[in-house]
């Protein structure tokens, strides 16, 4: 996994996702020592499930982010946060408590996300706007459109089945959201490792000239990746509203930054071409644990943000060493 072991093959190295999981375990045990921490197995399990459920939203928003970052070319999706909000709002307003509307609305949510992703991809590839600027701009456009359409007033209700599956326990002790997450995790890993799309995604992330000369349609791949990322972000909004039971135009914004850090902690190279969804899962759990810890310790919001920002920079310093290997 780690490229530093090319030179000295014997050296013992641990891959970033495993590192992240070990950190997560340590953090979790530490959190048990806090005054209001757990003191028996049952409460520890309950606490763990709670952390996992919260982490699942970061990880699902981070799924699209993982793809976009692997695609290289300074790929990043800053519109993901707004898309989560949009997905949540559409679901909240249109379903309005009606179980029969779940599937059509889900389809609409996915299409909306895909459409915004398409605009991102086209702007990046055809207008040659850098992904950072393009998706940041798109985030503003999306958010503005939401406010324009709703006029700041929104009313609705989540469908009962959604609450049942996402917010409640599906099996005693395990929230349904965990199962949704496991399915997405398996699909994402298959997508990256066992499909032609995944193989070509890594290829364009490493070297787009080589990819093109090997018959990969680079433009099409990049646009498609932003489309998938958009759809995934909006889908995360759909799931999130099932948990929060309430939506708002800013619901998703707080998840944008954590989703990017989760990808980085998981060892996905920020310059593209290397990474895994397993890493993002591990990263999301670490992020959620830290957030919970900081909240339990009652640190002010501003301080939490400082800690997150420093964390991201620290990770990039530690992981960013094998850049010289890229063409």
């Amino acid at each position, binding site marked *: 996994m780690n490229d530093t072991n090319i030179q000295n093959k014997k050296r013992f190295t641990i891959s970033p996702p495993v590192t992240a999981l070990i950190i997560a375990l340590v953090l979790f045990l530490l959190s048990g020592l806090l005054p209001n921490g757990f003191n028996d197995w049952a409460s520890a399990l309950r606490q763990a499930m709670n952390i996992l459920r919260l982490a699942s939203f970061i990880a699902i928003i981070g799924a699209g982010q993982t793809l976009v970052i692997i695609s290289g070319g300074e790929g990043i999706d800053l519109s993901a946060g707004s898309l989560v909000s949009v997905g949540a709002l559409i679901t909240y307003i249109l379903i309005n408590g009606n179980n029969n509307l779940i599937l059509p609305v889900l389809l609409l949510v996915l299409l909306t996300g895909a459409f915004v992703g398409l605009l991102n991809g086209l702007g990046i590839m055809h207008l040659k706007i850098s992904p950072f600027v393009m998706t940041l701009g798109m985030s503003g456009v999306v958010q503005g459109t939401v406010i324009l359409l709703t006029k700041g007033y929104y009313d609705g209700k989540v469908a009962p089945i959604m609450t049942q599956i996402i917010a409640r326990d599906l099996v005693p002790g395990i929230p349904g959201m965990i199962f949704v997450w496991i399915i997405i995790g398996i699909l994402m890993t298959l997508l990256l490792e066992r499909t032609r799309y995944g193989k070509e995604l890594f290829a364009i992330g490493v070297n787009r000239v080589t990819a093109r000369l090997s018959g990969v349609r680079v433009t099409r791949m990049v646009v498609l990746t932003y489309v998938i990322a958009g759809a995934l972000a909006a889908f995360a909004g759909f799931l999130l509203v099932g948990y929060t039971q309430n939506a708002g135009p800013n619901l998703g914004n707080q998840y944008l930054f954590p989703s990017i850090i989760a990808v980085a902690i998981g060892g996905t190279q920020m310059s593209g071409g290397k990474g895994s969804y397993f890493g993002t899962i591990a990263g999301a759990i670490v992020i959620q644990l830290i957030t919970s810890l900081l909240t339990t310790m009652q640190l002010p919001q501003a301080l939490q943000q400082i800690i997150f920002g420093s964390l991201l920079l620290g990770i990039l310093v530690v992981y960013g060493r094998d850049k010289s290997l890229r*063409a």
Partner: protein
Amino acid sequence: MKSIVLCTENIEKRFGGVIALKDGSIEIRPGEVLALVGSNGSGKSTLTKVITGVLSSDGGTITYHDKPVSYSNPMAAQRAGIMAVYQELSLIPSLTVAQNIWLANEPKTRFGSIDSKTMNAETAKLLTLFEGTFQPSLHPEAYVRDLPLDERQIVEILKAYSRKPEVLILDEATASLDSKQVNCLFDLIQLLKSEDKGLVFVSHRMDEIFRIADRAVILRNGKTVGEVLIADSNEDEIVHLMVGSNVGLTRELGGRMTFSAQESVLIVEDLENEQLNGVSFNIKQGELVGIGGLRGQGQSSLLHTLFGNSHYTGKITLFDETLSFDHPKEAIEHGVALIPGDRATEGLLLLRSIFENFHLPNWAKYCRPLLKMKSAHSDAEEMGKQLNLIMESLDAPVSSLSGGNAQKVVIGKWLLREPKLLLLDDPTKGVDVGTKSEFYKLLVKLQENGTTILFYSSDEQELLDLCERVLVMQDGKVKADLSGDNLTEANLVFHSMGATNNNNHHEESTHA
């Protein structure tokens, strides 16, 4: 005989184990243009770079104004009055024309700040030397990044000229200029000559050498092998000096098949784009055709165009089908493969495994829709064995391989597709001798199995050893089509240089 301003004796330069220069000896005299002539890799550029301090020498002496000198960097040589203009441009794209010309040499105001007004005015004055040969977009305050290649070359020439050098070396400075611009440059050279400056002119164009040079020094395999006065010499004599005695070497490896009866599988008519100026030729099934000529005459561009990687006008007929590829993928689907020139930037995914590099063009074959990893793995394993690939495992990163082994991966990923037309863009550059000979055997084997091969190499010997037919390119055109008895090193070099008045070697080729 005039005095000598700069002379080099027995200059040596090694790059690792490769000897680029063994005995570089030239004398530069004031008021004279010295042409430096030699085929690819004969050490011309290395020698000029040693003189200007870009490279340090491993032996020999440089005498400048009767004193031994050795410059450790180009700035030191410049201060002493030795300037060079290179083909690989050294301008800074994000600066203006004037800023580039006066870089590190800016006129100052009384207060020590840069005097932009004087700088721009002086630049405008310099530009009049090339008046009428460039677009109005070239002016002192234009940014270099907005200029086409020929105008950048003009700026580069003027930059060197503005430093008022004692010795000016022009290394392939005419390669990107049109004839009017070349005329202006030659006027400038005449002007410098009349001022008793020493001039060195490196060019691959025979006609230019005969127009402007007074004397020529010929290099072969890193050695100075001769010196002629242009007025008393002719193209033949120079070509003979360049080629030396190994004329008429026979091909050892090539199958020497005859192809007169068969149909052409690839017909190229009038191909044109930025680098190609009307290329036409035919290739028959199972032929191994070489592309020769000096570097950068459109060879790579031709291969990339055939592979669908460049826009073009003209007609390409492949296997009786008129094609217009607009992406390499379409070419690949028609059985074409391109082994690119630069492994690291065009051929490999350095961060990924050997396995993934092997299969990058091939994944579609294993889609069910999930990839059949087992069969992909065993196919790659087998290809590794077939190519004698030395590796730790298929899952090791491709960056862990040596140069020769990495090149095998680039080749292997196409062999897995069993291409019908194989295009090779100088594939043995920087590959060790052992791998090279394995590679030659592989090409011959592929040819015997009916693969049609188009093979560009900057190594003339390689073309002579392998190919029964060589197309020589110059200025984006096929200058000569050599085969049979016409295919000799002398002819190859002769046509590469764009020589024309040859009576002994050249016979009109009969190839269609």
